[in-house]
Protein backbone atom coordinates (compact mmCIF):
# COMPACT_ATOMS: atom_id res chain seq x y z
CA UNK A 1 0.00 0.00 0.00
CA UNK A 2 2.81 2.40 0.87
CA UNK A 3 4.73 1.67 -2.29
CA UNK A 4 1.57 2.00 -4.34
CA UNK A 5 0.86 5.43 -2.94
CA UNK A 6 4.44 6.60 -3.28
CA UNK A 7 4.62 5.41 -6.87
CA UNK A 8 1.24 6.89 -7.69
CA UNK A 9 2.21 10.21 -6.18
CA UNK A 10 5.49 10.23 -8.08
CA UNK A 11 3.78 9.46 -11.35
CA UNK A 12 1.18 12.15 -10.80
CA UNK A 13 3.79 14.74 -9.90
CA UNK A 14 5.86 14.00 -12.93
CA UNK A 15 2.80 14.01 -15.18
CA UNK A 16 1.80 17.43 -13.85
CA UNK A 17 5.37 18.59 -14.45
CA UNK A 18 5.16 17.24 -17.97
CA UNK A 19 2.15 19.46 -18.55
CA UNK A 20 3.44 22.61 -17.02
CA UNK A 21 7.16 22.86 -17.67
CA UNK A 22 8.26 25.59 -19.99
CA UNK A 23 10.88 23.85 -22.02
CA UNK A 24 9.33 21.37 -24.41
CA UNK A 25 12.12 18.82 -24.16
CA UNK A 26 11.92 18.92 -20.39
CA UNK A 27 8.24 18.09 -20.75
CA UNK A 28 9.08 15.12 -22.94
CA UNK A 29 11.62 13.86 -20.43
CA UNK A 30 9.17 14.28 -17.58
CA UNK A 31 6.66 12.27 -19.61
CA UNK A 32 9.27 9.54 -19.92
CA UNK A 33 9.65 9.45 -16.15
CA UNK A 34 5.85 9.21 -15.92
CA UNK A 35 6.00 6.14 -18.18
CA UNK A 36 8.63 4.68 -15.89
CA UNK A 37 6.37 5.36 -12.93
CA UNK A 38 3.55 3.50 -14.69
CA UNK A 39 5.86 0.59 -15.36
CA UNK A 40 6.80 0.52 -11.70
CA UNK A 41 3.08 0.42 -10.82
CA UNK A 42 2.58 -2.54 -13.13
CA UNK A 43 5.52 -4.32 -11.59
CA UNK A 44 4.24 -3.64 -8.13
CA UNK A 45 1.03 -5.37 -9.14
CA UNK A 46 3.11 -8.43 -10.14
CA UNK A 47 2.43 -8.04 -13.85
CA UNK A 48 5.99 -8.66 -14.96
CA UNK A 49 5.43 -8.93 -18.67
CA UNK A 50 3.33 -5.80 -18.95
CA UNK A 51 5.75 -3.82 -16.80
CA UNK A 52 8.78 -4.71 -18.84
CA UNK A 53 6.92 -4.34 -22.09
CA UNK A 54 5.87 -0.87 -20.93
CA UNK A 55 9.52 0.06 -20.42
CA UNK A 56 10.60 -1.52 -23.66
CA UNK A 57 7.87 -0.01 -25.80
CA UNK A 58 7.04 3.27 -24.16
CA UNK A 59 10.40 4.43 -22.89
CA UNK A 60 12.43 2.71 -25.54
CA UNK A 61 10.38 3.67 -28.54
CA UNK A 62 7.47 6.03 -27.89
CA UNK A 63 9.47 8.48 -25.79
CA UNK A 64 12.17 8.57 -28.44
CA UNK A 65 9.53 9.13 -31.07
CA UNK A 66 8.16 12.07 -29.11
CA UNK A 67 11.62 13.47 -28.71
CA UNK A 68 12.39 13.13 -32.39
CA UNK A 69 9.12 14.82 -33.26
CA UNK A 70 9.93 17.74 -30.99
CA UNK A 71 13.42 18.13 -32.29
CA UNK A 72 12.64 17.85 -35.93
CA UNK A 73 9.96 20.50 -35.72
CA UNK A 74 10.63 23.13 -33.14
CA UNK A 75 13.43 22.11 -30.87
CA UNK A 76 15.53 25.19 -31.09
CA UNK A 77 12.83 27.56 -29.99
CA UNK A 78 13.25 29.52 -26.83
CA UNK A 79 11.09 28.35 -23.94
CA UNK A 80 7.58 29.67 -24.14
CA UNK A 81 5.96 31.52 -21.31
CA UNK A 82 3.51 29.31 -19.50
CA UNK A 83 0.38 28.72 -21.48
CA UNK A 84 -2.78 29.53 -19.62
CA UNK A 85 -5.65 30.12 -21.95
CA UNK A 86 -8.21 32.80 -20.99
CA UNK A 87 -10.93 30.21 -20.50
CA UNK A 88 -9.03 28.12 -17.98
CA UNK A 89 -11.84 28.34 -15.49
CA UNK A 90 -14.20 26.57 -17.87
CA UNK A 91 -11.58 23.93 -18.51
CA UNK A 92 -11.16 23.17 -14.83
CA UNK A 93 -14.92 23.03 -14.37
CA UNK A 94 -15.28 20.45 -17.14
CA UNK A 95 -12.40 18.38 -15.73
CA UNK A 96 -13.93 18.36 -12.23
CA UNK A 97 -17.28 17.34 -13.65
CA UNK A 98 -15.86 14.44 -15.61
CA UNK A 99 -13.79 13.29 -12.66
CA UNK A 100 -16.87 13.39 -10.42
CA UNK A 101 -18.92 11.33 -12.83
CA UNK A 102 -16.21 8.71 -13.27
CA UNK A 103 -15.50 8.48 -9.55
CA UNK A 104 -19.17 8.05 -8.70
CA UNK A 105 -19.55 5.37 -11.32
CA UNK A 106 -16.58 3.39 -10.05
CA UNK A 107 -17.49 3.72 -6.39
CA UNK A 108 -21.11 2.73 -6.91
CA UNK A 109 -20.30 -0.15 -9.23
CA UNK A 110 -19.96 -3.69 -8.09
CA UNK A 111 -16.21 -3.75 -8.41
CA UNK A 112 -15.29 -2.22 -5.06
CA UNK A 113 -18.08 -3.91 -3.11
CA UNK A 114 -17.28 -7.50 -3.91
CA UNK A 115 -14.63 -9.49 -2.17
CA UNK A 116 -11.74 -9.63 -4.59
CA UNK A 117 -10.15 -12.98 -5.37
CA UNK A 118 -6.41 -13.29 -5.10
CA UNK A 119 -4.62 -11.99 -8.15
CA UNK A 120 -3.71 -14.87 -10.46
CA UNK A 121 -0.06 -15.44 -11.21
CA UNK A 122 0.08 -14.93 -14.93
CA UNK A 123 3.26 -16.19 -16.47
CA UNK A 124 4.51 -15.24 -19.87
CA UNK A 125 3.94 -18.80 -20.94
CA UNK A 126 0.23 -18.52 -20.22
CA UNK A 127 0.07 -15.15 -21.94
CA UNK A 128 1.62 -16.65 -25.02
CA UNK A 129 -0.73 -19.63 -25.00
CA UNK A 130 -3.80 -17.44 -24.67
CA UNK A 131 -2.59 -15.17 -27.44
CA UNK A 132 -2.10 -18.08 -29.75
CA UNK A 133 -5.39 -19.86 -29.04
CA UNK A 134 -8.15 -17.70 -27.67
CA UNK A 135 -7.01 -14.28 -28.83
CA UNK A 136 -5.51 -15.28 -32.16
CA UNK A 137 -7.78 -13.11 -34.27
CA UNK A 138 -7.03 -9.86 -32.41
CA UNK A 139 -3.34 -10.71 -32.65
CA UNK A 140 -3.47 -11.14 -36.39
CA UNK A 141 -5.54 -8.00 -36.82
CA UNK A 142 -3.02 -6.00 -34.81
CA UNK A 143 -0.26 -7.46 -36.92
CA UNK A 144 -2.08 -6.37 -40.04
CA UNK A 145 -2.53 -2.91 -38.60
CA UNK A 146 1.16 -2.58 -37.80
CA UNK A 147 2.09 -3.80 -41.27
CA UNK A 148 -0.18 -1.20 -42.81
CA UNK A 149 1.42 1.48 -40.65
CA UNK A 150 4.93 0.38 -41.66
CA UNK A 151 4.10 0.31 -45.33
CA UNK A 152 2.46 3.72 -45.05
CA UNK A 153 5.56 5.13 -43.38
CA UNK A 154 7.80 3.70 -46.07
CA UNK A 155 5.59 5.10 -48.82
CA UNK A 156 5.58 8.54 -47.29
CA UNK A 157 9.33 8.51 -46.89
CA UNK A 158 9.82 7.20 -50.41
CA UNK A 159 7.69 9.85 -51.98
CA UNK A 160 9.68 12.54 -50.26
CA UNK A 161 12.83 11.19 -51.82
CA UNK A 162 11.32 11.12 -55.29
CA UNK A 163 10.09 14.66 -55.24
CA UNK A 164 13.49 15.90 -54.09
Amino acid at each position, binding site marked *: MITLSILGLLTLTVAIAAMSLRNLVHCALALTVAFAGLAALYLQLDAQFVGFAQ*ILVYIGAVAILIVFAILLTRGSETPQPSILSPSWLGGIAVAVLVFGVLAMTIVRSSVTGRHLPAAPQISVHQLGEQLMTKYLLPLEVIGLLLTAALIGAVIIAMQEKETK
Partner: protein
Amino acid sequence: MDQIFVTSKHWLVGFAPAQCQPIISAIISVVGIILVFAILFAITTILERKGLGRIQNRYGPNRVGPFGILQPVADGIKALIKEDIVPRTADSVVHFLAPLVLVAPVFLALAVVPMGRNMVAIDMDAGVLFFFAVGAATELSVFMAGWSSRNKYSLLGAMRAIAQMISYEVPLILSAVTVIMIAGSLSTVKIIEAQAGYAVGLPRWFVLTPWGLAGFILFMIAAAAESNRSPFDLPEGESEIIAGYYIDYSGFKFALFFLGEYIGMFAVSGLAITLFLGGWHAPFAFLSWIPSYFWFFGKLLALIAVFIWVRGTLPRLRMDQLMNFAWKFMLPMALINLVTAGIWHFLEPGISRWLICSFLVLGPYIMLARGLLQGSNVGKRIYRYAD
Protein backbone atom coordinates in the same frame (compact mmCIF):
# COMPACT_ATOMS: atom_id res chain seq x y z
CA MET B 1 35.40 -24.57 -5.24
CA ASP B 2 32.72 -23.90 -7.75
CA GLN B 3 30.30 -22.49 -5.17
CA ILE B 4 32.83 -20.54 -3.16
CA PHE B 5 31.21 -17.19 -3.81
CA VAL B 6 27.73 -18.48 -3.09
CA THR B 7 28.73 -20.04 0.21
CA SER B 8 30.70 -17.01 1.31
CA LYS B 9 27.72 -14.79 0.53
CA HIS B 10 25.44 -17.04 2.57
CA TRP B 11 27.93 -16.90 5.42
CA LEU B 12 28.07 -13.11 5.30
CA VAL B 13 24.31 -12.80 5.11
CA GLY B 14 23.99 -15.06 8.14
CA PHE B 15 25.39 -12.28 10.29
CA ALA B 16 22.44 -10.00 9.61
CA PRO B 17 19.14 -10.21 11.49
CA ALA B 18 16.58 -12.38 9.74
CA GLN B 19 14.31 -9.54 8.71
CA CYS B 20 16.72 -7.68 6.51
CA GLN B 21 18.48 -10.73 5.14
CA PRO B 22 17.01 -10.44 1.62
CA ILE B 23 18.11 -6.83 1.41
CA ILE B 24 21.58 -7.61 2.71
CA SER B 25 21.86 -10.47 0.25
CA ALA B 26 20.84 -8.23 -2.62
CA ILE B 27 23.25 -5.52 -1.53
CA ILE B 28 26.12 -7.97 -1.36
CA SER B 29 25.35 -9.24 -4.86
CA VAL B 30 25.14 -5.72 -6.19
CA VAL B 31 28.39 -4.64 -4.59
CA GLY B 32 30.08 -7.74 -5.90
CA ILE B 33 28.87 -7.19 -9.44
CA ILE B 34 29.83 -3.53 -9.47
CA LEU B 35 33.30 -4.26 -8.13
CA VAL B 36 33.99 -7.08 -10.54
CA PHE B 37 32.77 -5.26 -13.58
CA ALA B 38 34.49 -2.02 -12.71
CA ILE B 39 37.78 -3.85 -12.43
CA LEU B 40 37.02 -5.68 -15.66
CA PHE B 41 36.37 -2.31 -17.28
CA ALA B 42 39.78 -1.06 -16.17
CA ILE B 43 41.46 -4.21 -17.46
CA THR B 44 39.57 -3.96 -20.74
CA THR B 45 40.71 -0.41 -21.40
CA ILE B 46 44.34 -1.35 -21.11
CA LEU B 47 43.86 -4.62 -23.02
CA GLU B 48 42.12 -2.75 -25.78
CA ARG B 49 44.82 -0.14 -26.13
CA LYS B 50 47.60 -2.65 -26.09
CA GLY B 51 45.72 -5.04 -28.36
CA LEU B 52 44.96 -2.33 -30.88
CA GLY B 53 48.57 -1.24 -30.70
CA ARG B 54 49.88 -4.68 -31.47
CA ILE B 55 47.40 -5.06 -34.31
CA GLN B 56 48.66 -1.78 -35.72
CA ASN B 57 52.30 -2.85 -35.37
CA ARG B 58 53.14 -0.63 -32.46
CA TYR B 59 53.37 -0.97 -28.70
CA GLY B 60 50.38 0.10 -26.66
CA PRO B 61 50.92 2.25 -23.58
CA ASN B 62 53.99 0.92 -21.82
CA ARG B 63 55.17 3.75 -19.60
CA VAL B 64 52.94 3.72 -16.57
CA GLY B 65 53.46 0.37 -14.91
CA PRO B 66 55.37 -2.67 -16.09
CA PHE B 67 53.98 -3.16 -19.60
CA GLY B 68 51.61 -0.30 -18.93
CA ILE B 69 49.18 -2.17 -16.69
CA LEU B 70 48.76 0.79 -14.35
CA GLN B 71 47.49 2.94 -17.23
CA PRO B 72 43.82 2.71 -16.12
CA VAL B 73 44.85 4.12 -12.73
CA ALA B 74 46.47 7.06 -14.47
CA ASP B 75 43.40 7.51 -16.67
CA GLY B 76 41.11 7.36 -13.68
CA ILE B 77 43.09 9.96 -11.76
CA LYS B 78 43.13 12.21 -14.80
CA ALA B 79 39.38 11.90 -15.26
CA LEU B 80 38.73 12.69 -11.64
CA ILE B 81 40.89 15.76 -11.34
CA LYS B 82 39.89 17.36 -14.62
CA GLU B 83 37.79 20.48 -14.44
CA ASP B 84 34.15 19.81 -15.03
CA ILE B 85 33.17 22.20 -17.78
CA VAL B 86 29.50 22.82 -18.46
CA PRO B 87 28.81 25.14 -21.40
CA ARG B 88 27.04 28.30 -20.37
CA THR B 89 24.13 27.79 -22.76
CA ALA B 90 23.76 24.16 -21.85
CA ASP B 91 20.76 22.80 -20.10
CA SER B 92 22.45 21.98 -16.85
CA VAL B 93 19.91 19.57 -15.37
CA VAL B 94 19.71 17.41 -18.46
CA HIS B 95 23.47 17.73 -18.93
CA PHE B 96 24.02 16.40 -15.45
CA LEU B 97 21.53 13.57 -15.68
CA ALA B 98 22.61 12.14 -19.02
CA PRO B 99 25.60 10.11 -17.76
CA LEU B 100 23.52 8.79 -14.87
CA VAL B 101 20.74 7.68 -17.20
CA LEU B 102 23.37 5.78 -19.17
CA VAL B 103 25.19 4.08 -16.34
CA ALA B 104 22.26 3.05 -14.15
CA PRO B 105 20.40 0.92 -16.73
CA VAL B 106 23.50 -0.86 -17.97
CA PHE B 107 24.38 -1.92 -14.45
CA LEU B 108 20.79 -2.99 -13.96
CA ALA B 109 21.07 -5.15 -17.04
CA LEU B 110 23.88 -7.11 -15.45
CA ALA B 111 21.54 -8.29 -12.75
CA VAL B 112 19.99 -11.04 -14.85
CA VAL B 113 23.16 -12.47 -16.34
CA PRO B 114 24.20 -15.63 -14.51
CA MET B 115 27.92 -15.63 -13.91
CA GLY B 116 28.25 -19.10 -12.55
CA ARG B 117 26.18 -21.94 -11.17
CA ASN B 118 23.57 -20.33 -8.85
CA MET B 119 25.29 -17.00 -9.29
CA VAL B 120 22.67 -14.72 -10.74
CA ALA B 121 21.76 -11.57 -8.85
CA ILE B 122 18.04 -11.82 -9.54
CA ASP B 123 16.40 -14.83 -11.09
CA MET B 124 13.43 -13.36 -12.86
CA ASP B 125 10.90 -15.22 -14.91
CA ALA B 126 11.10 -12.57 -17.60
CA GLY B 127 14.83 -12.03 -17.36
CA VAL B 128 15.63 -11.51 -21.01
CA LEU B 129 12.71 -9.13 -21.39
CA PHE B 130 14.01 -7.12 -18.46
CA PHE B 131 17.41 -6.98 -20.12
CA PHE B 132 16.05 -5.59 -23.35
CA ALA B 133 13.75 -3.16 -21.59
CA VAL B 134 16.63 -1.75 -19.64
CA GLY B 135 18.80 -1.62 -22.73
CA ALA B 136 16.17 0.45 -24.47
CA ALA B 137 16.38 3.03 -21.73
CA THR B 138 20.00 3.77 -22.55
CA GLU B 139 19.03 5.34 -25.83
CA LEU B 140 17.38 8.14 -23.96
CA SER B 141 20.66 9.12 -22.36
CA VAL B 142 22.24 9.46 -25.78
CA PHE B 143 19.57 11.92 -26.73
CA MET B 144 19.91 13.82 -23.47
CA ALA B 145 23.64 14.10 -23.88
CA GLY B 146 23.37 15.34 -27.42
CA TRP B 147 20.60 17.80 -26.80
CA SER B 148 21.78 19.33 -23.57
CA SER B 149 24.92 20.77 -25.07
CA ARG B 150 22.84 23.02 -27.38
CA ASN B 151 25.36 22.31 -30.02
CA LYS B 152 24.18 21.50 -33.52
CA TYR B 153 26.92 18.97 -34.08
CA SER B 154 26.40 17.01 -30.94
CA LEU B 155 22.67 17.03 -31.63
CA LEU B 156 23.32 15.63 -35.07
CA GLY B 157 25.49 12.96 -33.53
CA ALA B 158 22.76 12.12 -31.04
CA MET B 159 20.15 11.80 -33.78
CA ARG B 160 22.30 9.46 -35.77
CA ALA B 161 23.15 7.48 -32.66
CA ILE B 162 19.53 7.01 -31.75
CA ALA B 163 18.59 6.04 -35.31
CA GLN B 164 21.39 3.50 -35.30
CA MET B 165 20.45 2.08 -31.92
CA ILE B 166 16.79 1.73 -32.79
CA SER B 167 17.55 0.10 -36.12
CA TYR B 168 19.82 -2.48 -34.58
CA GLU B 169 17.59 -3.25 -31.65
CA VAL B 170 15.22 -5.14 -33.92
CA PRO B 171 17.68 -7.81 -35.16
CA LEU B 172 19.10 -8.02 -31.63
CA ILE B 173 15.77 -8.85 -30.10
CA LEU B 174 14.75 -11.12 -32.96
CA SER B 175 17.91 -13.22 -32.59
CA ALA B 176 17.26 -13.50 -28.89
CA VAL B 177 13.63 -14.45 -29.54
CA THR B 178 14.85 -17.40 -31.59
CA VAL B 179 16.68 -18.77 -28.58
CA ILE B 180 13.78 -18.05 -26.26
CA MET B 181 11.48 -19.92 -28.58
CA ILE B 182 13.65 -23.01 -28.59
CA ALA B 183 14.49 -22.92 -24.90
CA GLY B 184 10.89 -22.25 -23.97
CA SER B 185 11.49 -19.69 -21.26
CA LEU B 186 12.45 -16.06 -20.78
CA SER B 187 14.49 -16.79 -17.69
CA THR B 188 18.23 -16.76 -18.23
CA VAL B 189 18.81 -19.56 -15.76
CA LYS B 190 16.43 -21.85 -17.64
CA ILE B 191 18.00 -20.97 -20.98
CA ILE B 192 21.37 -22.04 -19.65
CA GLU B 193 19.88 -25.23 -18.28
CA ALA B 194 18.49 -25.98 -21.73
CA GLN B 195 22.06 -25.96 -23.04
CA ALA B 196 23.47 -28.40 -20.52
CA GLY B 197 24.78 -31.79 -21.48
CA TYR B 198 27.07 -33.09 -24.16
CA ALA B 199 26.28 -34.96 -27.36
CA VAL B 200 28.99 -36.72 -29.38
CA GLY B 201 31.61 -35.05 -27.21
CA LEU B 202 30.50 -31.56 -28.24
CA PRO B 203 28.46 -29.40 -25.89
CA ARG B 204 24.83 -28.78 -26.71
CA TRP B 205 25.19 -25.04 -26.96
CA PHE B 206 22.89 -23.22 -29.30
CA VAL B 207 25.76 -21.74 -31.24
CA LEU B 208 26.62 -25.17 -32.59
CA THR B 209 23.43 -25.40 -34.62
CA PRO B 210 22.90 -23.72 -38.00
CA TRP B 211 20.30 -21.30 -36.77
CA GLY B 212 22.30 -20.73 -33.58
CA LEU B 213 25.41 -19.79 -35.46
CA ALA B 214 23.54 -17.38 -37.68
CA GLY B 215 21.72 -16.01 -34.67
CA PHE B 216 24.96 -15.60 -32.76
CA ILE B 217 26.63 -13.70 -35.57
CA LEU B 218 23.59 -11.47 -35.99
CA PHE B 219 23.43 -10.90 -32.25
CA MET B 220 27.11 -9.96 -32.08
CA ILE B 221 26.85 -7.52 -34.95
CA ALA B 222 23.76 -5.94 -33.48
CA ALA B 223 25.46 -5.81 -30.07
CA ALA B 224 28.42 -3.97 -31.54
CA ALA B 225 26.00 -1.50 -33.08
CA GLU B 226 24.05 -1.10 -29.87
CA SER B 227 27.08 -0.13 -27.83
CA ASN B 228 28.38 2.21 -30.53
CA ARG B 229 31.45 0.15 -31.04
CA SER B 230 33.57 0.18 -34.15
CA PRO B 231 32.77 -0.38 -37.01
CA PHE B 232 29.51 1.19 -35.93
CA ASP B 233 30.93 4.11 -34.03
CA LEU B 234 29.78 6.81 -36.38
CA PRO B 235 28.02 8.69 -33.58
CA GLU B 236 31.22 8.63 -31.64
CA GLY B 237 33.37 9.18 -34.67
CA GLU B 238 36.69 9.55 -32.97
CA SER B 239 38.39 10.87 -36.01
CA GLU B 240 35.56 12.91 -37.47
CA ILE B 241 33.36 14.74 -35.07
CA ILE B 242 35.73 14.13 -32.22
CA ALA B 243 33.35 12.68 -29.73
CA GLY B 244 30.01 13.29 -31.33
CA TYR B 245 27.25 13.61 -28.87
CA TYR B 246 29.42 13.74 -25.80
CA ILE B 247 31.82 16.30 -27.03
CA ASP B 248 30.90 18.79 -24.36
CA TYR B 249 31.57 16.49 -21.47
CA SER B 250 34.86 16.54 -19.64
CA GLY B 251 36.41 14.84 -16.70
CA PHE B 252 34.36 12.46 -14.68
CA LYS B 253 31.18 12.66 -16.76
CA PHE B 254 33.12 11.63 -19.83
CA ALA B 255 34.61 8.79 -17.85
CA LEU B 256 31.05 7.79 -16.89
CA PHE B 257 30.01 7.71 -20.54
CA PHE B 258 33.02 5.61 -21.34
CA LEU B 259 32.20 3.33 -18.42
CA GLY B 260 28.59 3.04 -19.51
CA GLU B 261 29.58 2.11 -23.03
CA TYR B 262 31.98 -0.58 -21.94
CA ILE B 263 29.69 -2.03 -19.29
CA GLY B 264 26.98 -2.10 -21.95
CA MET B 265 29.37 -4.10 -24.08
CA PHE B 266 29.99 -6.50 -21.18
CA ALA B 267 26.28 -6.83 -20.46
CA VAL B 268 25.34 -7.64 -24.01
CA SER B 269 28.30 -10.03 -24.34
CA GLY B 270 27.14 -11.66 -21.14
CA LEU B 271 23.69 -12.09 -22.62
CA ALA B 272 25.18 -13.52 -25.81
CA ILE B 273 27.10 -16.03 -23.73
CA THR B 274 23.94 -16.91 -21.84
CA LEU B 275 21.80 -17.28 -24.93
CA PHE B 276 24.17 -18.90 -27.38
CA LEU B 277 27.38 -20.03 -25.76
CA GLY B 278 25.92 -22.05 -22.94
CA GLY B 279 26.50 -19.62 -20.08
CA TRP B 280 28.83 -21.06 -17.50
CA HIS B 281 28.99 -24.58 -18.93
CA ALA B 282 32.36 -26.01 -19.82
CA PRO B 283 32.92 -26.83 -23.49
CA PHE B 284 33.91 -30.43 -22.91
CA ALA B 285 32.77 -32.92 -20.31
CA PHE B 286 36.23 -33.67 -19.02
CA LEU B 287 36.82 -29.97 -18.27
CA SER B 288 33.84 -29.51 -16.03
CA TRP B 289 35.93 -29.62 -12.86
CA ILE B 290 37.04 -26.06 -13.59
CA PRO B 291 34.70 -23.67 -11.72
CA SER B 292 31.74 -22.28 -13.64
CA TYR B 293 32.54 -18.61 -13.14
CA PHE B 294 35.93 -19.24 -14.67
CA TRP B 295 34.23 -20.41 -17.84
CA PHE B 296 31.85 -17.48 -17.88
CA PHE B 297 34.58 -14.89 -17.54
CA GLY B 298 36.79 -16.78 -19.96
CA LYS B 299 34.09 -16.66 -22.59
CA LEU B 300 33.47 -13.01 -21.77
CA LEU B 301 37.13 -12.19 -22.28
CA ALA B 302 37.11 -14.11 -25.54
CA LEU B 303 34.16 -12.08 -26.80
CA ILE B 304 35.83 -8.86 -25.69
CA ALA B 305 38.92 -9.92 -27.59
CA VAL B 306 36.76 -10.46 -30.69
CA PHE B 307 35.29 -6.98 -30.27
CA ILE B 308 38.75 -5.48 -30.02
CA TRP B 309 39.91 -7.48 -33.00
CA VAL B 310 37.00 -6.28 -35.13
CA ARG B 311 37.63 -2.73 -34.02
CA GLY B 312 41.20 -2.92 -35.19
CA THR B 313 40.27 -4.40 -38.53
CA LEU B 314 37.22 -2.82 -40.06
CA PRO B 315 36.74 0.74 -41.24
CA ARG B 316 33.83 2.70 -39.97
CA LEU B 317 30.48 2.26 -41.69
CA ARG B 318 28.81 5.29 -43.18
CA MET B 319 25.36 6.17 -41.93
CA ASP B 320 23.43 5.03 -44.98
CA GLN B 321 25.49 1.85 -45.25
CA LEU B 322 24.73 1.18 -41.62
CA MET B 323 20.98 1.63 -42.02
CA ASN B 324 20.86 -0.40 -45.22
CA PHE B 325 22.70 -3.17 -43.50
CA ALA B 326 20.29 -3.21 -40.58
CA TRP B 327 17.04 -3.04 -42.44
CA LYS B 328 17.82 -4.80 -45.69
CA PHE B 329 20.09 -7.55 -44.50
CA MET B 330 19.92 -8.19 -40.81
CA LEU B 331 16.20 -7.94 -40.32
CA PRO B 332 15.28 -10.43 -43.09
CA MET B 333 18.09 -12.71 -41.93
CA ALA B 334 16.79 -12.61 -38.37
CA LEU B 335 13.24 -13.41 -39.46
CA ILE B 336 14.37 -16.29 -41.67
CA ASN B 337 16.52 -17.50 -38.81
CA LEU B 338 13.42 -17.56 -36.62
CA VAL B 339 11.57 -19.71 -39.15
CA THR B 340 14.58 -22.00 -39.49
CA ALA B 341 14.77 -22.48 -35.75
CA GLY B 342 11.12 -23.44 -35.71
CA ILE B 343 11.68 -25.98 -38.47
CA TRP B 344 14.66 -27.37 -36.60
CA HIS B 345 12.54 -27.84 -33.53
CA PHE B 346 9.96 -29.88 -35.37
CA LEU B 347 12.25 -32.13 -37.40
CA GLU B 348 13.74 -35.30 -35.93
CA PRO B 349 17.36 -35.12 -34.82
CA GLY B 350 19.71 -36.33 -37.48
CA ILE B 351 21.81 -35.32 -40.43
CA SER B 352 18.76 -34.33 -42.48
CA ARG B 353 17.73 -31.52 -40.25
CA TRP B 354 21.28 -30.21 -40.23
CA LEU B 355 21.32 -30.13 -44.02
CA ILE B 356 17.90 -28.61 -44.38
CA CYS B 357 18.49 -25.90 -41.82
CA SER B 358 21.96 -25.05 -43.12
CA PHE B 359 20.49 -24.65 -46.56
CA LEU B 360 17.69 -22.53 -45.18
CA VAL B 361 20.19 -20.23 -43.56
CA LEU B 362 22.78 -20.04 -46.30
CA GLY B 363 20.37 -19.55 -49.18
CA PRO B 364 18.84 -16.31 -47.96
CA TYR B 365 22.26 -15.16 -46.78
CA ILE B 366 23.65 -15.36 -50.29
CA MET B 367 20.59 -13.83 -51.87
CA LEU B 368 20.38 -10.98 -49.40
CA ALA B 369 24.07 -10.34 -49.73
CA ARG B 370 23.78 -10.04 -53.47
CA GLY B 371 20.81 -7.76 -53.06
CA LEU B 372 22.79 -5.55 -50.73
CA LEU B 373 25.76 -5.36 -53.06
CA GLN B 374 23.62 -4.39 -56.03
CA GLY B 375 22.82 -1.00 -54.60
CA SER B 376 26.42 0.12 -54.43
CA ASN B 377 27.87 1.46 -57.65
CA VAL B 378 31.49 0.79 -56.98
CA GLY B 379 33.29 1.14 -60.26
CA LYS B 380 36.35 2.83 -61.59
CA ARG B 381 36.79 6.25 -60.18
CA ILE B 382 36.00 9.08 -62.61
CA TYR B 383 38.25 12.08 -62.37
CA ARG B 384 36.96 15.42 -63.47
CA TYR B 385 39.42 18.21 -63.98
CA ALA B 386 38.72 21.90 -64.30
CA ASP B 387 39.41 22.98 -67.84
